């Protein structure tokens, strides 16, 4: 852990001297995690090139401001979350993420692994369709905590809110999704309503 920390410091120093190899190394070290985080927030790769580019350029632009108080990974994630927030805010809340599968028009599904994969895909699409209706802050809080697997405290730090506000956003988002699931059997089947996270219970 400490070794990685020192490595980060030395790598940042190299980046600050404008060394292209260091820039490349930093990007390669963190791109996988940042991409996964952005993907889980957005649910697709459509504008991912621009988002990754924006995030990392902001990282390099602000690198002098990294005071090594937080780990470099956390600091980069914070930048990425800000980029995602801006993207969601500019895009508008009501633009659907993916075309929904029409229940009535959907062909009868076979049993088996292929069918369950299709069900899962449909479930994901419906979940993100509901998330599209949430505010950017609520969507970020929910996806970072419930999908990306971060703790409430981590999520609060990343989005720059208090723990209480973050808990409230996650709870409201969950209520909204549960309400949608009550009317949508595919979404309902996708979600597992029995495993409630005690951490965000109101």
């Amino acid at each position, binding site marked *: 852990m400490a070794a990685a920390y020192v490595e980060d410091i030395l790598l940042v120093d190299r980046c600050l001297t404008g060394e*292209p190899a260091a820039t490349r190394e930093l990007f390669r070290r963190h791109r996988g995690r940042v991409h996964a985080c952005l993907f889980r927030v957005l649910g697709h790769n459509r504008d991912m090139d621009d988002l990754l580019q924006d995030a990392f350029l902001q990282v390099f632009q602000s690198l002098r401001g990294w005071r*090594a108080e937080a780990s470099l990974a956390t600091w980069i994630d914070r930048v990425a979350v800000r980029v995602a927030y801006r993207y969601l805010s500019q895009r508008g809340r009501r633009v659907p993420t993916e075309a929904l599968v029409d229940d009535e028009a959907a062909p009868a599904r076979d049993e088996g692994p292929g069918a369950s994969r299709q069900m899962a895909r449909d479930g994901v699409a419906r979940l993100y369709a509901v998330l599209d209706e949430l505010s950017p802050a609520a969507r970020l809080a929910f996806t970072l905590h419930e999908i*990306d697997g971060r703790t409430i405290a981590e999520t609060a730090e990343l989005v720059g809110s208090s723990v209480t506000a973050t808990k409230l956003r996650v709870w409201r988002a969950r209520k909204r999704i549960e309400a949608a699931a009550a009317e949508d059997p595919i979404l309902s089947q996708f*979600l597992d309503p029995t*495993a409630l996270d005690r951490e965000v219970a109101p």
Partner: protein
Amino acid sequence: MKLVGRIPVDPLDDERLTNIERRIVAGAADAAARGRPARESRMHVVLGFAIAAVAVLIAGVIGWRLRGPGEARVAAAEAPLHIRSDRERATVDLGDATIASDPASAFTVTRPDGGVLVALARGRVELEVQKRGDRAPLVVRAGDTDVIVVGTHFSVDYGDGRGDVDVRVTEGVVRVVHKQKETRLAAGQAWTTRRGLVAIAELERLAAVQAPGAGGEVEIDMGATVVEPARKPTPPPPNKPAGTGTGSGATAPESVARPGGNRTPPAPERPAAPAPADPNTDLKTQIRRQLVAPALDVGETAPAKAIGRYLDIVNDKKKLGEEASQAFYSIAVTQHLRLGDTQAALRTLDGYLRRFVGLEGSKQYQEALWLRVRVRCLAAVDDSCRQAAMAYVQKHPDGPRGVVADRITNSR
């Protein structure tokens, strides 16, 4: 609602990642340097370039009209150049090398056989030389001593042009040829006529011991720098003695030409040493007097091994532990005092000051702040030195170090 791990991430293909990486690498250096987003629309970039070009043009015209007797920066032409800086520093940009001279320095630059010959008549020059590849080397000739370089950062001090030569290498490697004997100098090493090969840190230590008492205020009298066209167009080749008498290769100037081309009456010859080689000698002496806290004793005499042990401690201990802080600091001390590697020491110190910002009030942190002042200001009393001094004096205004740091911030 258990969703963690249930939503697979669609990977980006290699081509997309490569494209993103290429754009980021291209934009990162620019973004970091300018401190503003590098990704802008094409029109903004074009507009930006246009505005910048106009601004540079206007600044150039204004600068040319307002140019005074300040530091001169001239590009050396193929013809020989005689440079004499009486009361100020002069900088000559040769394109593939930059020569900065202290006040009271005189030297001639020629380009024999594709190489560069800097014949130092007196004073001190500091050079930053780009890698020369297959081209003929750059040679600094001070009396009967040749300093041959293929790409590095070093200085040559020839005092009043009659005495000892002092060569210090901060980056790269140079060869010193003196009386047909060749000595190879690496970064952190120095060579003097009297002592031969010696560590820079050792020279600095001796200078601190031998330095006279504290002087008065720092005052730099800015005089005129003259750039003189050569009277004799044929320069001496680097493999032959450059002159006779004092051993200088520079031609004594008889008339003065300013960059604008106006000729002025000949400048009166000055005594041999009208000013000290470095106007901040007194200030640097005071900096050296403020001893830095020693590195941790880890039982290793070799600097590289000691640094390895310090790194072990840094890696072993908790992130912000005091011992880790001491070990981290010790790396910088070793790089500065024992290896004479200024750049590495500064990088380490920057890392230290960022990492241990939580220990800002500690003695160790204060030592690191002072070490940064020492490293920067012994290299040059410039803006980065003054910033380091300002950072120190803001935290620790009292005590002898605070007084010295305060003087640095007020130095011109």
